């Protein structure tokens, strides 16, 4: 491109920002970042041959709900983080997870044939229809508890997504491959902070250790194999096989942080039901009340 052409192009760029605001087309809203499109626009979402669509949809809900609810809990840290840099980090991690949730919920709504979009699934399901593990719904009492949850969650999800990259469902494999890059940064972030607090002052060490003890009863559930996963061979990841890899990472972080692995029992299920079956803790109802209230007060609203 010659100099003149470059100059001309630049002036077009300048004009364009104004165009985007004033020359509104039917489907464009002015506010940046508030529009919602199909997260899988133009992606081939057909269900692979031999795979049960309803089962695949449930599996996508499991993975999507984990990210959606974890993201929501992280978003609650906005304006409450100890430093601006940490608030930015937590916000970006929440945003990555929300993006993963959007794609997975969109995939779910297509796979089961109901054609529900991500918003319908996020805002119009009841508590018992959410398939997330209970770790993600826990309220963080302090910054250390958030970090303990994020460390366990991102270590586990990273191992799961790494394995999911070879899923025979091409959409799940693609979502996982993308997520792996993001989760690597999330895990590093949480691990570095856990080391900093664990190997910090006596007070930070005490609170980090207490945070681990509070979160640990929820870790056992992460490795409980579920029938839906067993019914999707080659598509879903067997979570019980992830334990060794996750343990190596967690033990390495805890050792560096001079922290010990809590010796506490697992949070029980009820008649064999756990988060993956729609059984949730008391905290969960409050999340839904907050997350769904606007959508339910103004059904069909757009902005």
């Amino acid at each position, binding site marked *: 491109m010659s100099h003149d052409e470059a100059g001309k192009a630049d002036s077009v*760029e300048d004009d*364009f*920002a104004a*165009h*985007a605001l004033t*020359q509104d*087309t039917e489907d*464009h809203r002015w506010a*940046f*970042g508030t*529009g*919602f*499109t199909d*997260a*899988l*626009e*133009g*992606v*081939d979402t057909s269900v692979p041959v031999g795979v049960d669509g309803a089962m695949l949809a449930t599996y996508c809900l499991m993975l999507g709900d984990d990210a959606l609810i974890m993201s929501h809990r992280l978003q609650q840290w906005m304006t409450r983080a100890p430093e601006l*840099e*940490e608030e*930015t*980090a937590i*916000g*970006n991690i929440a*945003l*990555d*997870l*929300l*993006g*993963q949730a*959007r*794609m997975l919920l969109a995939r779910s709504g297509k796979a089961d044939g109901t054609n529900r979009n991500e918003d319908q699934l996020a805002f119009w399901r009841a508590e018992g229809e959410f398939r997330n593990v209970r770790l993600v719904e826990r309220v963080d009492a302090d910054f250390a508890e958030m970090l303990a949850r994020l460390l366990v969650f991102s270590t586990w999800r*990273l191992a799961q997504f*790494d394995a999911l990259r070879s899923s025979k469902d*091409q*959409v799940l*494999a*693609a*979502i996982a*491959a*993308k*997520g*792996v*890059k*993001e989760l*690597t*940064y999330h*895990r*590093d*972030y949480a*691990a*570095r902070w856990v*080391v900093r607090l664990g190997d910090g002052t006596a007070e930070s060490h005490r609170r980090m250790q207490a945070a681990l003890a509070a979160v640990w009863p929820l870790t056992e559930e992460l490795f409980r194999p579920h029938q839906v996963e067993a019914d999707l061979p080659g598509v879903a990841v067997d979570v019980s096989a992830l334990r060794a*890899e996750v343990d*190596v*990472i967690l033990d*390495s*972080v805890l050792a*560096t942080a001079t922290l010990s692995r809590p010796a506490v029992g697992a949070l029980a299920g009820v008649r064999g039901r756990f988060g993956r079956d729609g059984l949730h803790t008391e905290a969960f109802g409050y999340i839904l009340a907050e997350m769904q209230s606007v959508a339910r007060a103004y059904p069909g609203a757009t902005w």
Partner: protein
Amino acid sequence: MVTARVLPEVPAWDGTAWDIAGRVPDPELPMVTLAELGILRDVRQVPGGVTVTITPTYSGCPAMREISHDLRYRLQQAGFGEVTIRTELSPAWTSDWITPEGRAKLIRAGIAPPNSARTRKAGPIPLTLGRFERTVACPLCGSQSTQETSPFSATACKALYRCNHCREPFEYIKEI
């Protein structure tokens, strides 16, 4: 739907629609274009219009809708009729796709371009407990004596750095 993947350097056809789409600025980094960032993957003419394939940088990129709208608007203004936008998730975007021109423009805007993304060996993904071992030159004074102050910044794709020489803070596009 499967279409051949075409990298930015090799337009699928005469390149007019590619040029128009490729010149659309990124909403969050307006100093660089979608083509320079590697977000624009393919532009091809179809009967009655044009199909544009884009890929998100991060899963939660909030700019995808604006990018779609900007592409549609620009191409329609240029007379390309029906504009279809496709999202392509695989292969996942990598910061290695940012072109040399894009990297030069980022530096001029005070943003350090990414190091090359590490190719992973087989086995578990390694944990990084210390600071990332990467050399980042200050985009303002050129000094290589810089330090990361936060692994996340105003957008998901950037980290926050500080120059030990000129003391200025700056942003760095993370390698992924």
